[in-house]
């Protein structure tokens, strides 16, 4: 079941990557629904799956379940497995009931799960059929968030890739437009929009938009910036429609954010002097805010277990701007192109691992004894009980951490567990 291969990364320093297979302690892509439904205010996510899928969403969403959330599970039962025709009828019945109950829904995502994919329930066809029935009132789309196909944040990738064909075509002779790709908290998105406006880049859209009905246009003149490192399929879909990716560091910390904004500024011909003037205040604030955590973090060794694909950019931020020493940086999937510059900025000797064999990786953590281990909630308390300080990874996906104004908060997320360890006398 396991293979270990050392292959060179095509980054500047050609750091070898340890590729492993085995037990993975990660979420499936369904979990993406938890933050995607907050972002897209007119969308509903209907998972077609088992009781396990419903239980996962409930466990991951915690208390949010009760605020009349815009997601639910159509739980397959014994009789649904008997014949596929019946399954489609059942799905139609549930969608009809759902849309009657929530007439405000403009886009309904049918989200595939492991069980629905293993029985080969054709949700794509179901979505087309239901879409025709409910047009123009409600758009019905489909993507897979199953564990057999997607890991955690890849659920967002699958969802956004489904939206790309729905984006209107940009007028052929229109001026270049900029697209920010990846669901960001509204406050972060607003900050970026203000900065782009000050830079003089005015035609800026986001994918996803806050309302699926207001998707931005895309075409050959579209330039896009990835705000998140886990958007491989979405990038491909955008390129199919002629858009061009701007290569940049991901916008974490003062340096990452500067680089990310500069990529857009250069592409749109913004005067470098003007660029420096516009970003200087934010950049200085970010550096000052980071300073609060520096003393706690400098020289500390950190290991990331694979979770979200944010690991490589975050390790770059922590090592370059806070002086931390990455020991092992695990990622569920390493997109060679999108992270090439990030990988090149990691200190030589950083162990980069892709995939997971959980028990072997934990053996390495115990041998390395890093000062801080970033890991999932299933591992955090057990590692703490072994005397290892941890930072639970899922918070990095739910909290605002991108951009200048959040750089201090991001550093604090890593400094806090270490400070707490020092405070407690029990």
């Amino acid at each position, binding site marked *: *079941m*396991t293979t270990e291969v050392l292959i060179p990364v095509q980054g500047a320093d050609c750091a070898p990557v340890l590729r492993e297979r*085995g*037990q*993975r*302690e*990660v*979420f*499936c*892509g*369904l*979990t993406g629904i938890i933050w995607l439904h907050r972002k897209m205010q007119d969308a509903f996510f209907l998972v*077609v799956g*088992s*009781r*396990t899928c*419903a*239980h*996962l969403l409930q*466990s*991951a969403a*915690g*208390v949010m*379940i*009760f605020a009349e959330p815009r*997601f*639910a*599970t*159509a*739980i*397959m*039962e*014994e009789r*649904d*497995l008997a014949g596929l025709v019946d*399954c489609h009828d059942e*799905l139609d*019945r*549930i969608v009809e*009931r*759902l849309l009657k109950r929530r007439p405000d829904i403009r886009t309904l995502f049918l989200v595939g799960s*492991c*069980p629905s994919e*293993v*029985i080969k329930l054709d949700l794509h066809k179901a979505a087309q059929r239901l879409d025709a029935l409910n047009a123009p009132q409600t758009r019905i789309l489909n993507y897979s968030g*199953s*564990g*057999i*196909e997607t*890991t955690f944040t890849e659920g967002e990738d699958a969802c956004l890739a489904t939206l790309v064909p729905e984006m209107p075509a940009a007028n052929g002779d229109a001026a270049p437009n900029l697209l920010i790709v990846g669901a960001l908290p509204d406050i972060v998105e607003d900050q970026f929009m203000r900065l782009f406006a000050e830079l003089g880049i005015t035609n800026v859209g986001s994918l996803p938009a806050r309302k699926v009905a207001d998707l931005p246009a895309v075409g050959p003149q579209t330039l896009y910036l990835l705000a998140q490192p886990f958007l491989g399929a979405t990038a491909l879909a955008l390129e199919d429609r002629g858009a061009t990716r701007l290569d940049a560091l991901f916008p974490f910390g003062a340096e990452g954010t500067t680089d990310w904004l500069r990529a857009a500024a250069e592409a749109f011909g913004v005067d470098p002097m003007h660029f420096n003037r516009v970003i200087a205040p934010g950049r200085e604030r970010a550096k000052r805010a980071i300073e609060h955590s520096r003393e706690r973090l400098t020289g500390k060794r950190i290991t990331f277990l694979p979770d979200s694909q944010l690991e490589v950019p975050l390790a770059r931020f922590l090592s370059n701007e806070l002086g931390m020493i990455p020991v092992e940086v695990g990622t569920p999937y390493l997109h060679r192109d999108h992270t090439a510059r990030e990988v090149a900025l990691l200190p030589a000797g950083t162990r980069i691992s892709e995939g997971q064999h959980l*028990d072997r990786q934990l053996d390495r953590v115990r041998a390395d004894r890093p000062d801080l281990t970033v890991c*999932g*909630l*299933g*591992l*955090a*308390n*057990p590692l*703490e*009980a072994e005397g290892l300080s941890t930072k639970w990874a899922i918070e990095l996906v739910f909290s605002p951490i991108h951009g200048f104004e959040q750089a201090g908060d991001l550093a604090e997320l890593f400094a806090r567990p270490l400070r707490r360890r020092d405070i407690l006398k029990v």
Partner: protein
Amino acid sequence: MQLAVWTYEGPPHVGAMRVATAMEGMHYVLHAPQGDTYADLLFTMIERRAKRPPVTYTTFQARDLGKDTATLFQDAVREAVDRFKPQALMVGASCTAELIQDDPAGLAEAMDLPCPVIPLELPSYQRKENWGAAETFYQIVRKLVDKDLRPAPREGRQPLVNILGPTALGFRHRDDLVEVRKILDALGIAVNCVAPLGASPADIIRLGAADFNIVMYPEIGDEASRWLERTLNQPAVRIVPIGVSATREFIAAVATLAGVDPAPALADNASRMPWWSRSVDSTYLTGKRVFIFGDGTHAVAAARIASEELGFEVCGLGCYNREFARDVRAAAARYGVEALITDDHLAVEDAIAAATPELVLGTQMERHIAKRLGLPCAVISSPVHVQDFPARHSPQMGFEGANVIFDSWVHPLVMGLEEHLLTMFRDDFEFSDDAGASHLHRTLPKTADAAQPVEDTALVAAQDLDTPSTIQPAQGTAAWTTEAERELKKIPFFVRGKARRNTENFASASGRAEIDLATLYDAKAHYAR
């Protein structure tokens, strides 16, 4: 298909995990896709366990399907056995693996492992978590128990019992066990084995050495206890000692089976609950309408306490686990209510709204329903969130459990004296609807016109009761005059819903088209108790 936002129970393999995690020296290899490891965090976060559950997942992915998932499974089994060296191994499939039909049982048996293998067939598309836990425990017992072992002759030794049922992620299982052990200590009865919680496969082998079994939680332990009864002739005590009376009956039953005098355990005067309940401040609890929902065992026990030990009126009773529908129906008949057997939380919400209780006893879900409806609530059953795995000792069973129950059910209610004062001063500006709760800092401007609909967010609870959707008179119900409506507003919010309902029922019963002040007070007189 069933549309669900919230489920009372997880899938059956989570029940199997609860059993495996409770035990020592047991390991569970679960054939499951990437992502099913989410269930680990129920144990490490909600129950705050310091160890990973002893579960290895095969983590198959799309590219594995159709070629080597069976090999993947066998490799995972081999590695798990080498690494963890378990005394026994459980193998099974999660919902997705059930569909790919790899037969974990056959695959594991073909491997000639150095430990016993317990294959689990858990039909994920029919059954749920509690059933999964019961079935798993039953299969473990069936597979491992030494069928030839019998209790030693009684001369010169203490009676010996097994305690069956407590698991990981069980509501107050840790502390209930302490209370049951306390009772057994007082009776001079020794414990042979507690299972699954804390038991190793070696302990399970020796279950037959006990004189009889105590089934703490029938949801999990009953299946195994029935098999032990049939196979080893081991009788069982199935009285669940939740509540003062039930605890006394439990002591008597245990003492009878053990052939000892129940007096030492019955003489335990640690129970303050009977006196607390008789003290005059509890008079106001009399006839409070209570709605009870949870797992069958806790719901039935709660109904008895509510009715016989606190003097409440049970206005609704139900459970989400169909396996215990019969017990709950029988109990509901005793209180003259219709049993609600459902796992649809929307149906529970409707039933609670219709019953207009003054107190809701339920699960985490009912806590949220009650919050929405502005009703006091206490938690009596799983599923529960992290705060109901408390650091302090808080059993439900035994005499101390009764103390805990008294406190936790009565605190959400407005205590008698407080309620009396509220009624006395209901027109006082500080107690009016616009004043808000006295302990909350006032941050929002008040609406100038008191006749406006309630908009004070400090009274969100009350507001929910007063929104048109919940209390607008039903079709054909008499209309309220402005004057009567204003008078109704003066009634404290926590009894206002009931007052409105009673008045409307009274008006329609007596054929009045309009509800004026006189109707309001006629109804009050009619319903006076």
